[in-house]
């Protein structure tokens, strides 16, 4: 068990290394340099030269790379030139917002998907099953930004049930109950949108898993012993079918990360995805490189999590 985890962890290192080189090269190609905004036409050319020398931009690229990666490992990604502050603390603040949004989304996602998947599997080929299939098909086909905008239009602007942007009302003091409530209130609409978009995979997997399990011998044995149908489902079928769903968790997190770029931009939610889009527009490349690196790391972590859960759930796939 531990061997598997350690091995998977070691496999991440070369992938992160290649990703960091790719990002470093891309950062070198990005237009502008770290002094954009600091330099005016009146700045003395020798001053610019001095700044360049001090930032180490005249060194060969591999030395610059080693310096960059050494700092990045310690959590120092430099300064953001639009926000005029430390990138790490800037991202840390946004990451917390994204974390709460993703957390609520995952809970809602499973709260929607598991009952629907179980019902569709249990009443296979019924009208309910067909409705669920249509629902999951619809959410699979609809692009993230279209659904988000339509929801924002209907629930945010027309019905005015939810706020249309931001993560908290400014009138509340941090730490008070009203503040927490306002935060939660701002998260609900993006989280629901997020959750609905992610349900397809879990529903379809759970449904087919239950349909397959229904036909197995142990279920027939349980039935012939005279166990009531309700119990056969709750104790025998669902327990067996839910195990592989647990492994979906890691992939769900990975999927949510990609979607956060759209969701946060549309709902004006100040998380990492929105920060990424605004940094791209303002060419704030110390933020961009840090975010791409972080997302790459989290994606790897998500697939690692899936593998670990999988190996706990299903001992057959453990690496010896």
């Amino acid at each position, binding site marked *: 068990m531990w061997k598997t985890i350690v091995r998977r962890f070691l496999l991440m290192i070369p*992938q992160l290394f*290649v*990703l960091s080189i*790719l990002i470093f090269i*891309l950062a070198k*190609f*990005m*237009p502008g340099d770290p002094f954009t905004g600091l330099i005016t036409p009146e700045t003395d050319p020798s001053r610019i030269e001095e700044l360049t020398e001090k930032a180490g931009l005249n060194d060969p690229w591999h030395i610059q790379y080693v310096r960059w990666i050494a700092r990045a490992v310690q959590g120092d990604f430099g300064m953001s030139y639009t926000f005029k502050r430390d990138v790490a603390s800037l991202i840390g603040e946004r990451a917390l917002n994204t974390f709460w949004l993703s957390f609520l989304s995952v809970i809602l996602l499973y709260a929607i998907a598991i009952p629907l998947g179980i019902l569709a599997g249990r009443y296979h080929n019924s009208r309910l099953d067909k409705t669920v299939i249509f629902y999951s*098909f*619809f959410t*699979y*086909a*609809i*692009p*993230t*930004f*279209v659904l988000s*905008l*339509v929801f*924002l*239009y209907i629930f945010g*602007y027309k019905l005015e049930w939810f706020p*249309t942007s931001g993560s908290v009302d400014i009138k509340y003091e941090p730490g008070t109950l009203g503040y927490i409530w306002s935060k939660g209130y701002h998260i609900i609409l993006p989280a629901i949108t997020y959750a609905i978009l992610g349900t397809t995979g879990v529903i379809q997997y759970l449904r087919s898993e239950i349909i397959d399990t229904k036909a197995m011998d142990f279920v027939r044995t349980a039935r012939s012993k005279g166990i009531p149908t309700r119990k056969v489902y709750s104790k025998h079928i669902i327990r067996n079918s839910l195990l592989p769903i647990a492994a979906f968790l890691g992939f769900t997190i990975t999927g949510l*990360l*990609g979607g956060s*770029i*759209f969701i946060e*931009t*549309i709902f004006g939610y100040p998380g990492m995805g929105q920060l*990424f*889009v605004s940094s*791209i*527009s303002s*060419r704030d490349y110390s933020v*961009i490189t840090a*975010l*791409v690196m972080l*997302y*790459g790391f989290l*994606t*790897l972590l998500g*697939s690692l999590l899936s593998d670990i859960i999988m190996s706990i759930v299903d001992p057959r796939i453990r690496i010896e």
Partner: protein
Amino acid sequence: MNKKYKRKKKYKSSPPTGIQVIFREFRKDKIAMFSFISLVTVIVAVFIGAYFIIDQEALMRISLKDNYAEPSGKFLLGADQGGKDILRQIIVGAKNSIIIAMSITLITGIFGIFVGLICGYFGGWIDNLFMRIIDFFITIPSLMLIIVFVTIVPKYSISSFVFIMSLFLWTGTARLVRSKVLSESKRDYVQASKTLGTNDFVIIVREILPNLSSIIIVELTLNFAGNVGIETGLSYLGFGLPPTTPSLGTLVSHANNPLVIQQYWWVWLPASLFILLMMLAINYVGQALRRSADSRQRFG
């Protein structure tokens, strides 16, 4: 003798071939049939409209007096901030989206199938190499990297956009084809052909590839839908087509302005619905094709 043989042939029942299976499947599934017909109609209409009827230069000309004109006789679906006709922009934008999505599907399809065939059939170091590359592509945040690429490419145009997208999107097809070729190349017919001394190239192209055709068609159709989604999504964020080119995503992105989303629904809603319906239709066709590729799931 000859006569008897002919009669026999007439009554012989053969299993339905690929096209017949697909046709039967579509005849059974009314929604898929409807989706297919409307999709073809819309694509043809959009292309005729974009190439023969609409003058693109006149379309993108700004006329301030028609600022946010309401839907009326002059502007069937109203106009945007610059007084540009929405309906015409949707038509031209849809044409651009379809062309881009098709080019990406073709490029990634051809490259993915090629890599998949080679890796699955030959295995060995080349397979190892490509699988490592594909593993890498799966674990990177590709949407972010596409955006970064888009912003740093000098002389950005539609073709560079297609190229950047293709760079990141070929891996799915390659993986699928590889796994199918892997199981196919263990079959008896391939072994028999090898024993007969058939050239590897001939085995791959003439014997294995036809057996994968149905899966490949399904994969390409669903990829096409996915690519339409990604292209319009990126254009929506402002990292897709250049702003001077009419695009569905750009039209939807007008909704980022709170005033537009609340009061000028005709600017963004029709384009959103168009994207939604197009995606649904392509996916329906794709699902019907998928069912006809798998005999256990068929309706017809």
